[in-house]
């Protein structure tokens, strides 16, 4: 097959671009350590979350020095915790969100950050993030979940470590 010289150059450039993209994404995964939401969260029965050892009482659990698990239930049209009370985590800590849904598919987005996941009934999404300085973030549902989807929001408070106390954690 006859391929024009310029077209060969273009083809080589295109392949280089593609390999370059794959290399940068791979670097993000391996070098920068950005893990994808995966299947490690396991499954839950969406109809009996109240019987779950953690989702039965969702909120912040300390798991190690400066390490916290936050269990969040998304449901039409609130996050629990998040909407009625803010999610609270201490500053300068490693936080793993465990997010599931009690009804339909929702989104869980910490506004202005890359902490973002789907909440699918029956599945537990886990994302680990580093939080630094004390601040407040907005939370929102970014997947259409029914007629009042636009009212589904909340807050995440990063509390100064000096103010952090046991009452802010669930356990």
């Amino acid at each position: 097959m006859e391929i024009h010289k310029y077209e060969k150059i273009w083809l080589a450039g295109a392949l280089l671009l593609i390999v370059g993209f794959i290399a940068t994404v791979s670097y993000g995964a391996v070098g920068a350590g950005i893990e994808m939401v995966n299947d490690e969260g396991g499954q839950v029965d969406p109809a009996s979350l109240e019987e779950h050892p953690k989702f039965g009482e969702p909120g912040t659990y300390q798991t190690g020095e400066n390490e916290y698990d936050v269990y969040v239930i998304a449901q039409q049209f609130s996050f629990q915790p998040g909407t009625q009370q803010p999610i609270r985590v201490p500053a300068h800590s490693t936080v793993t969100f465990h997010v599931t849904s009690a009804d339909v598919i929702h989104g869980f987005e910490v506004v202005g950050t890359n902490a973002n996941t789907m909440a699918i009934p029956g599945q537990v999404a886990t994302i680990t993030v580093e939080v630094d300085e004390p601040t407040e973030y907005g939370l929102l549902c970014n997947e259409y979940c029914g007629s009042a989807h636009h009212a589904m929001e909340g807050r995440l408070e990063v509390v100064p470590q000096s103010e952090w106390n046991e009452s802010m954690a669930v356990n």
Partner: protein
Amino acid sequence: MATFVDRYPDEAKVVQASFAVAFIALGIGALFGVIQALHRTDILRIIDSVDYYTLLTAHGVLLALVFTIFFLVGLFTWAIARSFERPMPDIRLTWAWFGLMTTGSVFAAVAILAGLFPDIPMSADVLYTFYAPLQAHPIFYIGLAMFIIGTWMAGADWFLAYRGWRSENPDDRIPLQAFMVLTTMIMWFVSTIGVAVSVVFFLIPWSLGLVETVNPLLTRTLFWYFGHPVVYFWLMPAYLLWYTVLPKLAGGRLFSDPLARVVFVLFVLLSTPVGIHHQYLDPGIAEGFKFIAMTNTMFLLLPSLLTAFTVVASVEHGARQRGGEGYLRWLGALPWRDPAFTGMALAGLMFAAGGFSGMINAGMNINYLIHNTLWVPGHFHMTVGTAVALTMMAGTYWLLPQLTGKTVFSRPIGLLQVVLWFVGMVFMSNAMHRGGLLGIPRRTAEPQYQQFDFATAVGSIGEIQAQIALGGVLLFLSVVLFLFNVAATWAQDRVDTPVDDRIPEPLSPPSGAPLVLDNLALWTVIAIVLVVLAYTLPLASIITDAGLLGKSPAFPVSVSVQPVVDAAISAFASVSPVTSAEVQPIEGVVDRLAEVIR
């Protein structure tokens, strides 16, 4: 001089009917689009926010499925008849698939639009993606199934035409346009299996109450098995026009027939085993499968990058035939007054920009930042919303005269219309991309929150919203002008030579293409093998984890939102706030929920 309608009058009727359905859907979809653009930017709210989701579902289904695919079946019928130089095998079969697709579309549209009328106990506010366990009325799913089966029959019709042609031309190369149609349909047959299984085996029985539960991750994964190839199904008619018509309009001819075939074969192979890239942030799918989908997606850039070269080279050749010279001065020699040329050229230009934002979406880890934000509709309004839709509108200015024997009513209006679309989309999609980077969500009637504000580094939220609204209004005006021009063309009298419908032979003829490219069976088998490799393990794992039918009961999209809102309000009201500072936002939420009732 005879044109298409004289040579194939029966086929021309089917193509005209398909275009008519497409354009009706375009008009309704565009009207709903501008209402949404003004609503979500809080510039003009003439509907309740609950109805926003009804209009959004209709906007997605009518534009992304009905408009694009009815245009496709019309265009492909035209391409098959003219490139095989023979009528369809049995015009009754052709009308049968047109009838089935139209009936299915009407069913789905009725189920959706009934959501606007509280007295009708029917609703399908599940959006174009219809993720379970949100549940629509069964008529919605049944209509979708009929629509898909209609497209299968259309594909069968074109393959029967191919068989008839092949029996009389055993040694000829498949004509290029027919090759594009057949390869696109192979991709479509392979990829629609996913959505057909999801709808027919899971969602229809579940919506009828025959089974009680679904596995939401399974139906979602089956949707995206189809949901990425469908974007190439939208795009391939545009590619067909860019490869075979645009060079002619530019005054030249296609650069290379063999490379055009290579590109379409690559789409057959790579379009389907990539759907999981829409599920980068889904739990229940291992990272490895996401990585495979990511690499396949990146390689899928290759046929589009090759297309960019071939199409630009062909257009440049056309410009030089018209006397164009220099490195870039030849651009001035192009027929910019021709709406068909200018529309397609602008569509291709915007596709390049849309391609770059798509590369961000495909980048697995950077996708966290923009997933389900306004960035995503910003992206696909450049691709399907411009590369495809604008090419289809522009192509109409060249095709309609062949189908009707009538000249285009007004070329200046046509030119204004395509330019207006481009300008409107620059405003709207650029602002949507920026809004997405700030975290503004997609698919949300009122993205204004009580508990926080979006922070902007450059510009302001108000300025972004103004651009979105302005763009939406320009796009709607463009559609109004288009529909007027088309209707006025249809109303004209027939003339002898409405348009120059000849398509010159490519510079590099098909004889240079390896014969293996025309081996459709081989490419089908390889495509299926790639799909099996990409999907067997993820699907097996999803089914093992939560069962074939899952554990999720139905959450019907309520005909009346009253019970849902009552429940939500009582949940809020029962809270005793920890501090007085929190009273304010909670009351705000209750107020907004109360507004929803109205």
